[in-house]
C-alpha cells in the first residue's frame, strides 16, 4: 500500500470547484468511483494499470511508451477501494494524470494539467458554499470514506477534519436539498489539504442526495419511491414562515395544509397527503421528529365515533406547530404506503420526517434573528344583514326576527318594518372586525464545541396579536350599557398567541466508530383563541348595533353575550437520545429512545350576560396530558462484492401513546362570575386513550453496478388497544430504481444528464379504536324513578373481529435531469384501501356495529419541474413548478349504505370520499298567493328531482409556481410562491348563516333575481356551495446580504435582511370570504369564518 507514498513531497494543494463540470467529466468521475480489488506485487506500471482497469471493468487507453518511461516496480494490494484511490497510489510520483475522454472513458496523459485524482496531504479543511448563491452552507455533513465519523460545517460553511491517516480518502459532503459531492483526497501526515466545495441545489429528482429513511440514511438513487425534501434552514431565513405548517404549505406536491380559520393567530391546521382514503379514522400523516413519533394533530378518535381535541376544545393551536421552524434542519415528506411501510402502524397516510438542528464542532458560533410582522385580515364581500319586525294574526309581537320566509309565507309573521344593519362594506364603525396588529419573533442560537462534545442551543420568543377585534364602536356602546370605563382583554384583544421555546442538542463521539446525540425541545404556549363563530355571525348578519342587538334574548349579536373566549396554556417537552455504532466495518447499528410529553389547560368562558342575566353563562376547565414514548433499534449491513451491493436492515420499533383528560363545565354562572364554583349545574367528563404498538421489519436492498436497485422488505406490526390482544399483521414493500442514464447502451442521448425510472409498492395500516371493537356502553346520570340515577346502555355492539384498515399503494415515476440543469420528477400512484371501517346501522332498534366493509381506490399524479432560466455571473433565475392531482372512488360499502343525502355531505359507491350531493335548484314557480309577487317563498323553489353528485370539498388539483431570482453575484435574492387549487366546492358560510338565521335582505327584494332569492328562501346547505377555485399569491420575499462595508461598521461577519409578504393577493370567483378557510373534516362542506391572514414582515438574520 505504501510503496509510492515515499515518492511524494509533503505539500499543500488547494482544490477549488471550477465552473460546472461537463458531462464527460461527470461520467469519468463516476467511473473513478467504481470499486476495485487488485493484488499485484512488483509489477510494471503498465501491468498494475491493466489490473486496475480490468477490475474496474474500464477501458483505459494509454501510450505504452508513456508508461515505459516509469520503470519502477509497483506493489498494490487493495480490496474494494475506488478506482480513483487505486490510480492515485500507482501514479504517485509520476507526472501522469488521469483525464476524461470524449467518449466518457478515462485516459492517461503526461503533463502538469489537472488530474481527476487530486493529491493533497495532512488535515482536510475547507468551506462549503451554495453553488448558486455562493453563500456559506452550515450543517453540511462532511465524512471520510463513508465512515460514520463526520463533522458538520459551521455557520460560515467551514469544516475541519483532523487526524486523518495518510493515504487516499474519499471525502463526501452531503446535505438534504443539495447534490452530494464526493472527492478523492490523498492525505499525508503533517500536511493540510484544503477542499472547498460548492453544492448545487437540487430538486427532488437528483439522485445523489441523501435522505432519511426508516432504516437510516440512504442514497436517493437506491429508493424506488419519491421523497420530497424541504431545506428548512434556508427557507426559514428568507421566506415568510412563522410555523411548521407555513413551512409545509404549498411546498410539496400532494401535501395539503388545510386551515380552518387562517386569520386567527394560532388557528388549527390539518395535513393531507395524497388526499383522504379513510371514512372514519385519522386521515393525517404521522410525524417523526429526530426518529421519535411526534403528536402532530389535535384529533383523538375516542371510542366510537366520538372525536375529541387533544388539547381541549375551541380553536386551539395545532400540536405540529409546537416546533419552532427555526430549529428544523430538514423535512422529508414520505407520501404513502409505497414508501412508508417501515414506519409502522398508522403510516398509511404518509410520514413527515423532521430532523432538527444538531451541534456543529468548531469555534463557537452565535446567530440571532428578529422578525417584526404586521398581520391583517382582509375585508371581503359579505351579505347584508337586517332585522324584520312583525306580529302574528292575533297581533302578538313576533318573538325574534320575523324574516324567515317560512314564517312570513306561513302567515305566522306579518311584516311591520325592516331595519337594515350596516356592514363592513358601509365602513360602519360597528362593522370593523379587523385591525392591523403586530407580531414579533425573536430567536438566537449558539453552536460549537470540540468534535468530542458538540452542541447546539437555541431559544425563541414569539408574540402575536390576532387581527380580529370586536368593533370599536361596539366596544364603546358596550361600555355605556355596562357603565364601565374599560372592557376586559378578551374584548379588546380576543386573539393573542405567545410562545417560548428552547431547543438543545449535544452530540459526542463515544469512540471513533460511534456517536450519541441527545436532542430536547421545550415549548410553552399561551393562546387566546378568537371565537370564530362570533366573527362569522358578524360577517354574515351585520355587526352589533344599537337598535339591532339589544331588543331581546333571541338576538345573539350582543358582544358580551356571544363572545366566548378560550384561553389555552400548553407546554410540551420532547427528547430524543439516539446513537450509532459501527460495530464491524460492514455493520452499523443504531437505536433511539424518545419522549413526547404534553400538557394543556384550556379555560373557556361564555360570560353570564350582564345584559341578560337570566341566560347565565358557561365556564369550562379542560386539562389534558399526553405521553408518547418511542423506542427503536436497528442494524444495517453493507456489502459490496464486485458489482453487486447489498444493504440489509433489520429493526424493531415500540411506540406508546397515552392521553388523559378531564373536562369540567359549569352552566348558569352567577352574574359577573367567571368561576365554575358559582355554576348552577356542573358536568364533568373524562377522556382516556392509550395505544401500544410493536413492530419489526427486515429490508434488503440489492444494487447492480450502482445503477439498478431492488428493494424488498416486510414489516410485522400490531397494536394493542382495549379489548384486543396483540395480533401482528404483515405489511410488505418492494421497490425498483433503475438509473437508465448510467447504462452504457443509453449513454450519449443528447441533452439527457440523468434519467431514472422507479417503482415502489407497499402496504400500511390504520387501526380501529377500542370503542369500535368493544362496542360502547354509555353511562350517564338522568332523572328516573323519581331521582337522579346513573343508567347504562349500549350505544354500539361489539365486533372483536375488526381488522386494521389496510392500504396498498403502487407508485411509479421517473426523475430526469437534462440540458445541464432542467430537472423534472414525475410520479403516478394508485392506492387501494380495503377493510375500511364503517358504522353499520343495524335495523332500527338494534345498536349499530362497526365492520370492515368498505373499499376505496385512489390514484393521482405529481410533477415537479425546475427550470434554470438564466445562469450568469450576475443573474441567476429559476422557475419551479409543481402540480398534483388526486382523486378517489368508493368501490364498495359492503353492508353499509350509500349516504347520498341532500344536505351537502355523504358518500356513495362510485363517488369520491368527501363528495357532496344535493338536489340543485332548477327554477322557481312564483305562484303562492295565486299571483307572481316577485318574492320567492320556500315552497316556490323547484328542485331537481334527483339527488346529484355536486363535487368534492378538498381540492383535488393543486399547482404552485415559484420564480426565483438572484442578482449581484447572489447577494440579493428574490422569490415568490403562487398557489392555485381547483375543482372543489366551498360553502359561502356567510350567505348561509345569513339565510338560516333569517338575516338576509335578499329574499324580500323583488329586484333580486329569482334564483338568488330561491337560494336564500330554501336555506339548504347544498345551495350555498360554489366552486372554490382560487389562485393565491402565497409568498414573496426579497433578501439581501448586507455589504461588507456595512458589516465592518457593525462588526458582524454576516447579516441578511429579508422583506417578506404572505397571502398577498387572492384571485377567485368564489363569493364567500375565503375559499381556503374550510372545515378540516372531509365529509362536511361547511366553510369557516375567518379569511387567511395577510402578513408583512422584515427579518434580520445576524451572525456576530
Amino acid at each position, binding site marked *: 500500500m505504501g510503496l509510492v507514498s515515499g515518492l511524494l513531497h509533503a505539500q499543500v494543494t488547494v482544490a477549488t470547484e471550477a465552473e460546472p463540470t461537463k458531462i464527460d467529466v461527470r461520467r469519468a468521475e463516476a467511473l473513478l468511483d467504481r470499486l476495485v480489488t487488485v493484488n499485484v506485487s512488483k509489477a510494471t506500471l503498465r501491468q498494475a494499470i491493466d489490473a486496475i482497469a480490468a477490475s474496474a471493468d474500464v477501458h483505459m487507453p494509454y501510450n505504452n511508451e508513456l508508461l515505459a518511461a516509469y520503470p519502477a516496480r509497483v506493489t498494490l494490494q487493495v480490496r474494494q477501494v475506488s478506482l480513483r484511490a487505486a490510480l492515485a497510489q500507482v501514479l504517485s510520483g509520476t507526472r501522469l494524470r488521469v483525464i476524461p475522454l470524449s467518449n466518457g472513458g478515462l485516459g492517461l496523459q503526461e503533463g502538469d494539467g489537472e488530474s481527476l485524482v487530486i493529491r493533497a496531504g495532512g488535515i482536510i479543511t475547507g468551506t462549503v458554499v451554495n453553488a448558486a448563491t455562493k453563500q456559506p452552507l452550515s450543517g453540511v455533513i462532511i465524512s471520510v470514506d463513508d465512515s460514520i465519523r463526520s463533522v458538520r460545517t459551521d455557520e460560515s460553511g467551514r469544516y475541519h477534519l483532523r487526524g486523518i491517516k495518510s493515504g487516499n480518502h474519499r471525502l463526501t459532503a452531503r446535505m438534504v436539498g443539495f447534490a452530494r459531492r464526493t472527492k478523492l483526497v490523498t492525505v499525508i501526515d503533517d500536511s493540510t489539504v484544503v477542499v472547498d466545495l460548492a453544492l448545487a441545489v437540487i430538486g427532488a429528482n437528483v439522485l445523489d442526495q441523501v435522505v432519511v429513511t426508516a432504516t437510516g440514511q440512504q442514497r436517493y438513487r437506491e429508493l424506488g419511491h419519491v421523497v420530497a425534501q424541504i431545506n428548512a434552514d434556508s427557507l426559514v431565513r428568507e421566506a415568510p414562515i412563522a410555523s411548521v405548517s407555513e413551512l409545509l404549505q404549498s411546498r410539496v406536491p400532494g401535501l395539503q395544509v388545510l386551515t380552518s380559520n387562517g386569520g386567527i393567530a394560532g388557528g388549527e391546521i390539518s395535513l393531507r397527503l395524497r388526499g383522504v382514503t379513510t371514512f372514519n379514522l385519522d386521515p393525517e400523516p404521522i410525524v417523526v421528529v429526530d426518529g421519535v413519533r411526534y403528536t402532530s394533530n389535535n384529533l383523538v378518535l375516542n*371510542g366510537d365515533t366520538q372525536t375529541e381535541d387533544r388539547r381541549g376544545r375551541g380553536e386551539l393551536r395545532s400540536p405540529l406547530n409546537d416546533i419552532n421552524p427555526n430549529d428544523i434542519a430538514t423535512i422529508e415528506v414520505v407520501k404513502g404506503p409505497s414508501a412508508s411501510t417501515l414506519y409502522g402502524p398508522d403510516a398509511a397516510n404518509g410520514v413527515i420526517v423532521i430532523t432538527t438542528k444538531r451541534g456543529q464542532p468548531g469555534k463557537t458560533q452565535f446567530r440571532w434573528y428578529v422578525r417584526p410582522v404586521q398581520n391583517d385580515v382582509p375585508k371581503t364581500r359579505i351579505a347584508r344583514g337586517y332585522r324584520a319586525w312583525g306580529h*302574528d*294574526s*292575533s297581533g302578538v309581537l313576533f*318573538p325574534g326576527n320575523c324574516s324567515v320566509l*317560512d*314564517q312570513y309565507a*306561513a*302567515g*305566522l309573521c306579518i311584516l311591520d318594518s325592516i331595519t337594515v344593519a350596516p356592514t363592513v362594506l358601509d365602513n360602519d364603525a360597528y362593522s370593523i372586525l379587523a385591525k392591523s396588529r403586530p407580531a414579533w419573533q425573536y430567536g438566537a442560537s449558539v453552536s460549537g464545541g470540540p468534535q468530542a462534545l458538540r452542541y447546539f442551543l437555541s431559544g425563541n420568543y414569539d408574540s402575536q396579536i390576532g387581527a380580529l377585534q370586536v368593533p370599536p364602536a361596539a366596544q364603546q356602546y358596550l361600555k355605556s350599557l355596562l357603565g364601565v370605563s374599560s372592557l376586559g382583554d378578551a374584548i379588546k384583544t380576543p386573539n393573542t398567541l405567545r410562545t417560548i421555546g428552547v431547543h438543545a442538542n449535544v452530540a459526542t463521539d463515544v469512540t471513533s466508530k460511534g456517536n450519541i446525540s441527545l436532542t430536547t425541545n421545550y415549548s410553552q404556549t399561551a393562546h387566546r383563541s378568537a371565537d370564530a363563530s362570533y366573527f362569522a355571525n358578524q360577517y354574515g348578519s351585520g355587526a352589533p348595533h344599537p337598535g339591532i342587538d339589544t331588543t331581546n334574548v333571541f338576538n345573539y349579536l350582543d358582544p358580551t353575550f356571544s363572545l366566548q373566549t378560550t384561553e389555552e396554556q400548553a407546554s410540551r417537552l420532547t427528547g430524543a437520545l439516539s446513537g450509532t455504532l459501527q460495530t464491524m466495518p460492514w455493520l452499523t447499528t443504531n437505536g433511539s429512545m424518545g419522549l413526547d410529553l404534553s400538557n394543556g389547560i384550556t379555560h373557556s368562558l361564555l360570560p353570564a350576560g350582564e345584559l341578560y342575566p337570566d341566560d347565565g353563562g358557561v365556564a369550562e376547565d379542560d386539562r389534558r396530558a399526553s405521553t408518547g414514548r418511542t423506542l427503536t433499534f436497528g442494524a444495517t449491513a453493507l456489502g459490496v462484492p464486485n458489482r453487486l451491493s447489498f444493504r440489509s436492515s433489520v429493526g424493531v420499533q415500540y411506540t406508546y401513546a397515552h392521553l388523559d383528560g378531564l373536562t369540567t363545565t359549569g352552566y348558569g354562572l352567577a352574574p359577573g362570575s367567571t368561576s365554575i364554583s358559582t355554576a348552577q349545574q356542573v358536568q364533568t367528563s*373524562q*377522556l*382516556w*386513550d*392509550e*395505544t*401500544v404498538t*410493536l413492530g419489526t421489519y427486515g429490508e434488503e436492498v440489492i444494487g447492480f453496478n450502482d445503477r439498478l436497485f431492488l428493494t424488498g422488505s416486510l414489516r410485522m406490526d*400490531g397494536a*394493542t*388497544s*382495549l*379489548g384486543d390482544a*396483540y395480533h*401482528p399483521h404483515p405489511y410488505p414493500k418492494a421497490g425498483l430504481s433503475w438509473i437508465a442514464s448510467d447504462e452504457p447502451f443509453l449513454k450519449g442521448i443528447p441533452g439527457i444528464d440523468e434519467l431514472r425510472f422507479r417503482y415502489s409498492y407497499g402496504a400500511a395500516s390504520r387501526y380501529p379504536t*377500542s*370503542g369500535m371493537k368493544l*362496542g*360502547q*356502553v354509555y*353511562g350517564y346520570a*338522568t*332523572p*328516573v*324513578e*323519581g331521582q337522579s*340515577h346513573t*343508567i*347504562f*346502555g*349500549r350505544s354500539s*355492539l*361489539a365486533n372483536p373481529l375488526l381488522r386494521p384498515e389496510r392500504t396498498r399503494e403502487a407508485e411509479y415515476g421517473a426523475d430526469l435531469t437534462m440540458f445541464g440543469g432542467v430537472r423534472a420528477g414525475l410520479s403516478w400512484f394508485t392506492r387501494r384501501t380495503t377493510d375500511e371501517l364503517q358504522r*353499520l*346501522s*343495524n*335495523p*332500527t*332498534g*338494534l*345498536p349499530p*356495529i362497526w365492520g370492515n366493509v368498505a373499499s376505496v381506490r385512489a390514484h393521482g399524479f405529481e410533477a415537479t419541474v425546475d427550470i434554470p432560466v438564466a445562469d450568469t455571473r450576475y443573474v441567476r433565475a429559476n422557475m419551479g413548478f409543481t402540480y398534483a392531482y388526486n382523486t378517489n372512488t368508493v368501490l364498495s360499502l359492503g*353492508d353499509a*349504505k350509500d*349516504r347520498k343525502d341532500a344536505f351537502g355531505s355523504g358518500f356513495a359507491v362510485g363517488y369520491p370520499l368527501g363528495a357532496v350531493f344535493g*338536489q340543485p335548484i332548477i327554477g322557481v314557480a312564483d305562484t303562492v298567493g295565486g299571483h307572481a309577487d316577485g318574492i320567492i*317563498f*320556500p315552497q316556490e323553489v323547484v*328542485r331537481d*328531482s334527483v339527488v346529484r353528485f355536486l363535487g368534492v370539498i378538498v381540492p383535488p388539483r393543486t399547482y404552485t409556481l415559484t420564480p426565483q431570482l438572484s442578482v449581484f453575484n447572489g447577494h440579493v435574492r428574490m422569490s415568490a410562491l403562487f398557489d392555485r387549487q381547483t375543482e372543489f366546492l366551498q360553502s359561502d358560510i356567510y350567505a348561509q348563516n345569513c339565510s338560516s338565521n333569517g338575516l338576509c335582505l335578499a329574499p324580500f327584494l323583488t329586484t333580486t333575481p329569482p334564483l338568488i332569492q330561491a337560494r336564500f328562501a330554501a336555506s339548504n346547505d347544498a345551495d350555498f356551495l360554489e366552486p372554490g377555485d382560487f389562485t393565491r399569491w402565497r409568498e414573496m420575499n426579497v433578501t439581501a446580504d448586507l455589504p461588507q462595508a456595512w458589516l465592518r461598521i457593525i462588526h458582524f461577519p454576516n447579516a441578511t435582511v429579508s422583506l417578506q409578504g404572505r397571502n398577498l393577493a387572492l384571485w377567485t370567483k368564489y363569493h364567500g370570504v375565503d375559499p381556503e378557510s374550510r372545515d378540516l373534516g372531509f365529509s362536511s362542506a361547511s366553510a369557516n369564518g375567518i379569511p387567511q391572514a395577510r402578513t408583512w414582515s422584515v427579518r434580520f438574520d445576524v451572525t456576530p
Partner: protein
Amino acid sequence: MGCHGVLDVSNPTVIQDGDIANAGGANARRLDVVSDFSNRLARIAADVALFTDERVYDRRSAPQPSYGDPDLVLDRRNSQEYEQFGAYDNSDRHLGWLDEIVTKSAIAIPAVHAYAAAANKNDFLAQLFAMRGYAILQMAEDVCPGFPINDVSPNNLPIFSRPYTTDSALTYAIAQFDSALAFGHDSTQFLDFARVAKGRALLDLGQFSQAASVVGVVATSFAYTTDPSVRGNDFAPFQINRWSFNPMAVGNLEWGSGLPFVTANDPRVPTTFVQTRFGDPSDSLYDQLKYPDATTPMVLASGIEARLIEAEAALNSGDASWLVILNTLRSSLVVPSLPALDDPGTMSGDIDLLYQERAFWLYLTGHRLGDLRRLIRVYGRSAASVFPSGAPYPLGGTYGAATSIPFVQVVEAQYNPNITSGCTSR
C-alpha cells in the same frame, strides 16, 4: 407474543361489560330500559294519534321531498311514502323505537337475573318482562304483519328475527307477560301492569273471556304510567307550538268519520283553541290539555282499561253488564259525572259505543290503532268502514289505504336475511 405487560393498555373511561357485572350495573341497565320505555311510548302514542283520528297535522310548507316529513306521511296513512322516508332516512322509526325496548331489556334481564339483590330481583324482572312484552304488544297492534322483532344475545351480538304475524307477535308478548307474572309475585304494581297488558293482548287475539279473567283482579283505581321523572323532549309531540311550522292538533271528525274529540266537549279529552289551519281560516286547530306539560305521565295500563276489557268480554258473551260497566266508569271516575249511555240495541251499535268509550278513556295513550285494527281483524269490519281511503287529505293528496303502520323493509332487510318481503298485509 410473550410480551404481556409491555403491550397492555387500560382505559378507565371505557365502561366494559365486566366493569358493570354487579348489582349496581344491573340496576343501571334496568333503569336504561325504564327511561327509554317512558320516552319511547310517548312517541309511539303520538304516532298512533297521527295515524288514527286522535290527532291531525298542519304544516306551513311542503316537505322536500314530498315524503320528507314522517309526521305528514303518518297522518296521511301512506305506506309507500312511509317506506320511502324510511329508506331515505335509513330508519324505521315506529318499529325501531319499540324494538329498542326489546333489545335493551334483552341486555338488562340477564344482568338483573345474575346480579340484582335478592330483595328486589323478582320485582325488577317482572317489570322488565312486562315492559318488553308491552313493546312487543304495541308492535303487534300497530305494525303491519311480517315485521321482525330483533334482539341481542348475551354476548352483545345482534339476533336477527324471523317475520312475525300479528297473532304470533301477540303470543310472543303474552309469553313475556307470563314471565312477568311468574316473577312479579312481590309487587302488585308490576303484576297488575302485566295482567292488564296481557288482557289487552288476549283481546287482540279475540280471546275475550280469557282476557276478562286475567284482568279481573285488577282494581279500577290501578294505573301504570310512564315515569313522570323521566325528562326529555319526547313528550313534545303533545304540545302545540304556536310558532311552529308543523303543529299538531286534536282530531275532530277526521276523515269525516273520525270521532269528534273536540266538539264532543268530553272532559276526558280537554282541549283549547289555538289558531286556524294554515291556508284555511275556517278550520280551527285545538290543542289537547290532557298533558299540560311534559311531566304529566301517560297511563299505559289501568284499572279503567281492565274494566273496558271486561265490558268487551261481556258484550261478546251477550252479557248486558257491559253497559253497566261503562256507565259505572262514567259516573264514578269523572267529575261531574258523565250522563249514562243508552244501549244502541244492535251489536254493531254496541261495538261502536264501546269503542267510542275506549277512544275517549284511552285518548293519546297508544291504544287507538290497536282498537281500530281489532274492529277489522276480530269483528270483521271492512277496512273502508274503519279507515277512509282516497279521501282528499287537507294538506294535499289523498289518504292512503294503510290500516297499520308499515315497517321499512329495506331497512329491516339490510342485514337480516330472514326479512325477504315487506308487509304481508296492510
